[in-house]
């Protein structure tokens, strides 16, 4: 339970850490766009994206093994979608067939393509969460969502809800582990039976978890009230987001990446 590191902050003092959070969120979105721009049949764009990730990781002073551990959380989805593509994609030449199973070259291509794409996106997104604390992400989002205030969207409340949710993920995860152990000690069986039986076995875990989450929410609300919380009215911020020259460098680098990807696509004569 505890080794899902996706979305965990890795504190360090680095160039990437010091970038403005809203900028980093925009850059992450831009990175995802770049990954999507890569043409289906020429993977060189992916290589460029991967190079970008490696360089960013080095600059962020994050151990490269961290990248692998972020991927672990999505292995199932990746394998699942790849398998779907391999077995059910019927376009292209058939390269292998046995009884009713037909595997086409297009299917294999697409499977690899999708796998690389998902992995790159997950790694890119987790680079954001490794180098930006949840609070900074929430603040960054608050800044980016600020224009929505015009249509009376509760931006501050939304950001606070997000940061509290992030803050309680590890707490609730520990709690889940504890409840599972407690129920096992009472003879609950989570390992045997088919998938429906196992899903049903989780009910005695989910209900106590839900109840305790509500209790926590109640207590947290009291504690926040006790500390004079009154919504966004006349509230100040201790950590002020500042923009600097570094952020411009970030934008330029990512602009370069997108341009590179588009150029590589064009270089092979196929425009997306």
């Amino acid at each position, binding site marked *: 339970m505890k080794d899902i590191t996706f979305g965990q*902050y890795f*504190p360090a003092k680095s160039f990437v850490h010091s970038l403005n959070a809203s900028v980093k969120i925009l850059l992450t979105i831009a990175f995802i766009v770049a990954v999507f721009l890569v043409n289906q049949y020429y993977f060189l764009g992916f290589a460029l994206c991967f190079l970008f990730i490696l360089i960013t990781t080095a600059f962020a002073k994050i151990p490269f093994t961290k990248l692998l551990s972020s991927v672990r959380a999505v292995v199932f989805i990746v394998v699942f979608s790849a398998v779907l593509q391999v077995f059910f994609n019927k376009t292209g030449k058939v390269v292998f067939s046995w009884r009713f199973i037909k595997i086409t070259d297009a299917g294999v291509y697409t499977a690899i393509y999708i796998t690389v794409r998902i992995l790159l996106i997950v790694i890119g997104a987790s680079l954001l969460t490794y180098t930006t*604390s*949840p*609070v900074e992400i929430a603040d960054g989002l608050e800044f980016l969502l600020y224009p929505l205030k015009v249509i009376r969207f509760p931006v501050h409340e939304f950001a606070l809800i997000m*940061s*509290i949710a*992030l*803050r309680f993920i*590890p*707490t609730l995860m520990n709690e889940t582990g504890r409840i599972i152990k407690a129920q096992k000690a009472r003879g609950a069986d989570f390992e045997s039976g088919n998938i429906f039986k196992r899903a049903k076995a989780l009910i005695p875990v989910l209900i106590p978890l839900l109840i305790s989450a509500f209790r*926590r929410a109640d*207590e*947290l609300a*009291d*504690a*926040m*009230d*006790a*500390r*004079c*919380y*009154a919504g966004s009215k*006349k*509230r*100040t*911020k*201790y*950590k*002020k987001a500042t923009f600097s020259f570094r952020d411009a460098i970030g934008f330029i680098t990512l602009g370069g990446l997108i341009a590179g990807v588009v150029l590589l696509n064009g270089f092979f004569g196929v425009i997306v």
Partner: protein
Amino acid sequence: MRYSCKNFVFLIYYLYSQIANAFDEKGGLMALIELKNVSFSYDKKTDAIKNLSLSIERGEKVAVIGHNGSGKSTLAKLFNALIKPDGGSVIVDGFSSDKKEDLFEIRKRVGVVFQNPENQLVASIVEDDVAFGPENLGIEREEIGKRIDFALKSVDMEDFRFRSPERLSGGQKQRIAIAGVLALKPEVLVLDEATSMLDPKGRKEILGIAEKLNREQGTTIINITHYIEEIVGYKKIFLLKDGELVFCGTPEETFKKVDLIESCGLILPRATQIANKLKRNGIPLPDGILTEERLLVELCKLK
């Protein structure tokens, strides 16, 4: 010149309002926290607090003891204006929890640390959490920074400023929770069973910090607890039973009321229990033995 004149008028007005706040309607000097005939009910059927009156002076160190369901935690929320009394009044430093505009004045003055340290921390970084209170008050950035320094120093957690509270021990988390309250510069620190989820070491740390704050900064301490041995050294003890104040006195006086304490479902400290049993068997020991050290000294005096 015009500005200083204006400031002077404000100063006079401020002093006047402060002095006026310090007296009640009859002109008597008021305590820092004053509860008068307070009653409160969660479900409108049974009263969690029944007709309770008490007063706590500035700089005092008092304890509220009682069994589960005696209304202790309700009392903590009343002190802090988290709940409004159904009947009677709660006055803190001249501010009444009945008035909406006074709520934040009360909450600024009375900081509450709750039982579960985990459920009081809002942020994922220690300094952000400590900053939460001052941010709510609309305090300037630089001042917030100073308050974080001060608060973390008061609980000896300066080294953890940039860490995540996730990996801290229960006692350390509770210290951060205290720091979060201290950043509001409260006059009163209420510990609402703040030690009950901690190991003995954590408990000692928290009580030590409360002690230090009281001694060095003159913070009023209200320790709400069911560990009766914690009340040693406190000035005043309030004993609660079923929402009623059944006794108020010094720790020594409290420990003499053996039957009353036991009828409240509380357990006397071991040293007191042993002393009482010895006395019943004819060994001449004085009243009010609270600690094992004291029992030892008294036993050695015997011939």
